[in-house]
């Protein structure tokens, strides 16, 4: 059984809000002239946002020295998978209505989708290896596998960049976020001694 404390419950509920908001917009016909695309884009955006939140956990943990954040990483990770799955389903069902020959051509000819699929496959692999018993079973390999989250983030950013016509502001923002988060990890692991000492509270230096 999962035990929820109040904060965790609050965050768990908040993770459903983007979906609720989207459903509300669908019901109110609030999505403009290309509602199919709007739904699809909204879900893609939220997949990427959750992915960024997953990556933010470790740096926050290091900086605040707050134990127990790993649970949130796991929760955000599963929501990344959840929204990415809805994003994929929206593409297959809402947009293409499962007309496979057209889907096949579309994917083959759209290189930006390849990056999306790569990101999704990684997120999928990470999601199916979340149960506690799998973590135990995998031992050290689990950590190695879950480092691929950075590769997923890179692929997701490429997926975003590669579909644009020239307006780079939004994907650049996410790229910056991911570089910062990855940069932090790299710094920490390479200069472990110095940096982690600076980050630790005074008494523990």
């Amino acid at each position: 059984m999962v035990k929820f404390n109040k904060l965790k419950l609050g965050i768990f509920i908040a993770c459903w809000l983007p979906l609720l908001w989207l459903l509300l917009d669908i019901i109110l016909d609030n999505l403009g002239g290309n509602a199919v695309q709007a739904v699809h884009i909204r879900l893609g955006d939220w997949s990427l946002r959750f992915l960024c939140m997953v990556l933010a956990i470790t740096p926050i943990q290091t900086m605040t020295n707050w134990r127990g954040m790993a649970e949130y990483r796991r929760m955000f990770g599963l929501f990344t998978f959840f929204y990415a799955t809805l994003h994929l389903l929206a593409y297959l069902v809402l947009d293409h209505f499962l007309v496979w020959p057209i889907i096949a051509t579309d994917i083959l000819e759209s290189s930006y989708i390849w990056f999306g699929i790569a990101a999704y496959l990684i997120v999928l692999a990470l999601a199916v290896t979340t149960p506690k018993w799998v973590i135990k079973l995998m031992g050290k390999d689990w950590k190695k596998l879950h480092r691929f989250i950075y590769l997923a983030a890179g692929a997701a950013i490429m997926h975003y960049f590669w579909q644009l016509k020239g307006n780079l502001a939004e994907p650049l923002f996410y790229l910056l976020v991911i570089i910062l988060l990855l940069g932090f990890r790299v710094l920490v692991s390479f200069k472990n001694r110095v940096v982690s000492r600076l980050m630790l509270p005074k008494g523990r230096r």
Partner: protein
Amino acid sequence: MIIKTKKTIPASEITDPYVFKERRKIIKALLALTAMGSGIVPVLADNKPRWTNLPESSFSADLMTTPSEIIENYTNYYEFSYNKHDSTKLAQQLATDPWSVEISGEVEKSGTYFLEDILRQQTLQEHIYRFRCVEAWSMVIPWVGFALGDLLRKAQPLSTAKFVKFTSVYRPEVMPRQKQNNMLEWPYSEGLRIDEAMHPLTLLAVGMYGDTMPKQNGAPLRLVVPWKYGFKSIKAIVKIELLKKAPTTSWNKFAPGEYGFYANVNPNVPHPRWSQNSERLLGSGFFTPRRETELFNGYGEQVAGLYKDMNLRHFF
């Protein structure tokens, strides 16, 4: 001649404009109640249309047209913003009256004319055409306009006129992307080969749905070339030049590997980063599959001859 495209849009696939409007009214009322902002900006008040009983072009396709609210709210206008919602709002600041157009270059009679004077000499018709954007969505639009060729002939092109260059208005005061000198080379410009320009399908449009052109859709005068991707159909035209050589065009200059001079709709030639094989017909709802894109956007019977000895993969 009526263009019979093989697959017309089944009535079930597209919302009847009346039903669409009614549905929107109900939704608007709901929205007012919930005090939430609608994603769609109401741009035009419900005035009487400017033209009634326009003759129908013989090229008009026998298709259900896309609701005007979609056409008016889902359009690119990069001079204003890269975002369709913002550009629609900002475009309202463009003053379009009075408007004059310069016709020059390889012609006997060059000059600058008021749009109203040009219109007095042309017979306006309604032209129901398919419109296919390079972003893989499409519409069916009832344009009000006249054949570009009719205007060009009045200027008497010289035999040296091989291409036509179109230039959009340059108004950095109201066009933020021009002011910041962002992305494309401004003013926006486009071009056609002379035979493409003289083709009877090629229009200069001044309105749609029997009414004046909404500003965001290219008022007061825009080009419509239905067998090419939408970015060829330049908006707010102030200059038409007949040239000996092919002009440079905005998108082609920005990304020559992605946007060709011809830009004919072609499902077999993907954009380097995405497929052009299918399109989302706007107005069709959820769970409606995409429409398979047709070569020359379904106008092959009329225009394929213009390109008969050309490798369309090379001249994309």
